[in-house]
């Protein structure tokens, strides 16, 4: 049996793997977070081809290319080795992110702009699909038997920390310049993309100094590496049934819990509760900061009591409490539109937008200060004046927007989002060790990468879209979008409880 690495070596292995993976997540997230500005720069809505490319950039990168990247780089990692494969994914990710920040806008180079951005975005998805499996495998294959969950849980913090840094960098850049400068053609929105090259450069330097995984090196020296990892992983029944079990019994539920806690919640606060742009993001930032250490805690605990119960516990809690928690968000941000207890009402502000069809949208926003509920907010209504004068003016219902919570309510919301992310830490903290232990060394990279990226990219990535679909279909229940993550997590919980074992596979050296 191979001796595990020394404490100093394992620390440098974790640092090198985690920093690189975190940067990859950062690179992947900034595109999504800046999607409104990116759309305006590269994908103008009045050009149907550009709009189609935009859809592909958003959806294809997450859903199709990530699992495909898992197959391509997983195979490479099982053939060539972990070290060079996840070095390659890092270079691909960093290079394409930096280049997105350098592409001239649609206004300058026309349709070439969205085509280049789409290609670079697809490269990002491909690289992300190859990164995680490599990092998790690499750390696990260095870790001592009784600390595999603990050490791999550091890798698990990277997806959340990548989100944290992406949010932080964007907020920092945005708060230091006016909106016009941020959104300009060569404006501040490009800085987060350019910063990436610096981060990636440092990470490449660190990773170059690392050695190959000892288990993989041994296999290679003995000539026992897989000749065809894809065939062995997915065409050999004994292994394929474990791939299916990993997907339906663990990763599928983990993916939806992850996306609901870290993306759907923030989106819900902004678009359903109408909390201000800044507060909806800082609430998430605080919650992430408080919850991140729990990844390590659950990883450590999973070495003591097994992986299964912690992951299943997180899923069950999510299934049972999602609706009450989101109901609280709605309840606490419901404010009166009429009969306000107001002080110093401001004059209304009129904004007129002329649309393509020559109709006019008149948006009237009136700031109000509601004393009792602890929320400041604006009241907004939108009227549509049609070019065809025979049509009556369309009046929308007034709604309260741009809500700013007072300190008490703000921290209550931080606490509630913290609970949602705590579930994320329960399902996500032990999963790298769990997946690593399911598959043999010679095909580990390939076998664990595919279910992971289907679970997260497809099941998790679709949480916002299916939520929107349900909300549009069943309009009376504002929480109806939650039935998708609840349903998937419940199904995964049943499969996991029935079919998974809690036994830790101590010997992954085979």
């Amino acid at each position: 049996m191979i001796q595990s690495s020394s404490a100093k070596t394992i620390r440098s292995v974790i640092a090198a793997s985690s920093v690189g993976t975190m940067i990859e997540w950062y690179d992947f997230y900034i595109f999504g977070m800046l999607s409104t500005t990116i759309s305006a720069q590269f994908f103008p809505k009045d050009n149907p081809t550009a709009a189609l490319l935009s859809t592909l950039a958003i959806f294809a990168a997450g859903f199709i290319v990530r699992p495909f990247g898992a197959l391509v780089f997983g195979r490479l990692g099982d053939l060539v080795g972990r070290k060079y494969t996840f070095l390659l994914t890092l270079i691909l990710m960093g290079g394409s992110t930096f280049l997105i920040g350098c592409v001239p806008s649609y206004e300058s180079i026309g349709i070439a702009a969205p085509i280049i951005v789409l290609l670079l975005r697809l490269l990002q998805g491909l690289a992300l699909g190859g990164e995680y499996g490599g990092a998790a495998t690499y750390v696990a294959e260095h870790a001592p038997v009784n600390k595999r969950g603990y050490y791999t849980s550091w890798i698990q913090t990277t997806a959340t920390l990548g989100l944290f840094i992406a949010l932080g960098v964007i907020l920092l850049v945005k708060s230091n310049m006016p909106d016009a400068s941020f959104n300009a053609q060569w404006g501040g929105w490009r800085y987060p993309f350019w910063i990436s090259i610096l981060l990636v450069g440092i990470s490449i330097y660190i990773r170059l100094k690392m050695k190959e995984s000892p288990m993989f090196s041994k296999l290679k020296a003995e000539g026992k590496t897989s000749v065809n990892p894809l065939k062995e992983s997915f065409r050999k029944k004994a292994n394929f049934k474990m791939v299916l079990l990993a997907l339906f019994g663990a990763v599928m539920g983990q993916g939806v819990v992850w996306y609901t806690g870290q993306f759907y919640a923030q989106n819900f606060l902004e678009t359903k509760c109408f909390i201000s742009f800044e507060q909806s993001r800082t609430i998430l930032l605080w919650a992430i900061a408080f919850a991140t250490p729990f990844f390590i805690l659950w990883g450590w605990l999973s070495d003591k009591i097994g992986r299964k119960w912690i992951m299943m516990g997180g899923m069950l809690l999510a299934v049972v409490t999602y609706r009450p928690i989101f109901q609280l968000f709605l309840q606490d941000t419901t404010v009166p539109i009429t009969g306000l207890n107001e002080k110093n009402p401001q004059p209304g502000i009129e904004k007129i937008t002329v649309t393509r069809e020559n109709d006019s949208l008149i948006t009237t926003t009136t700031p109000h200060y509601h004393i009792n509920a602890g929320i400041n907010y604006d009241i907004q209504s939108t009227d549509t004046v049609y070019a065809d004068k025979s049509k009556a003016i369309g009046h929308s219902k007034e709604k309260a927007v741009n809500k700013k919570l007072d300190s008490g309510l703000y921290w209550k919301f931080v606490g509630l989002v913290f609970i949602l992310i705590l579930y994320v830490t329960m399902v996500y903290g032990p999963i790298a060790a769990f997946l690593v232990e399911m598959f043999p060394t010679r095909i580990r990279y390939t076998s664990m990468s595919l279910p992971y990226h289907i679970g997260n990219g497809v099941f998790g990535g679709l949480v916002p879209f299916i939520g929107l679909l349900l909300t549009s279909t069943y309009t009376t229940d504002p929480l109806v979008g939650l039935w998708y993550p609840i349903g998937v997590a419940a199904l995964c919980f049943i499969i996991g409880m029935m079919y998974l074992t809690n036994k830790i596979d101590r010997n992954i050296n085979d």
Partner: protein
Amino acid sequence: MNAFKRYLGLLFLVLAPFFIYELVAGAIANIDMTGKKDINNPVIWIIIIAIFTPIAIGLVIFGWYAFRGEYDQLPHRSKEL
């Protein structure tokens, strides 16, 4: 317990086609070339149905394996894979 695991496999065999049916029905109901929302966009539906169909087939295979008792005993060593 093993008998229950096997019968549960039958449920997954039925669930998978049901999910695909729901997706196709959702696509037919929501695709609207004049609509401006994401859910009106046929490209998104094509991508989602294309990616979910093999997953649903995977669930059918999982259900079949479960029904056949393939998960009654999980392998303890990688050599069994």
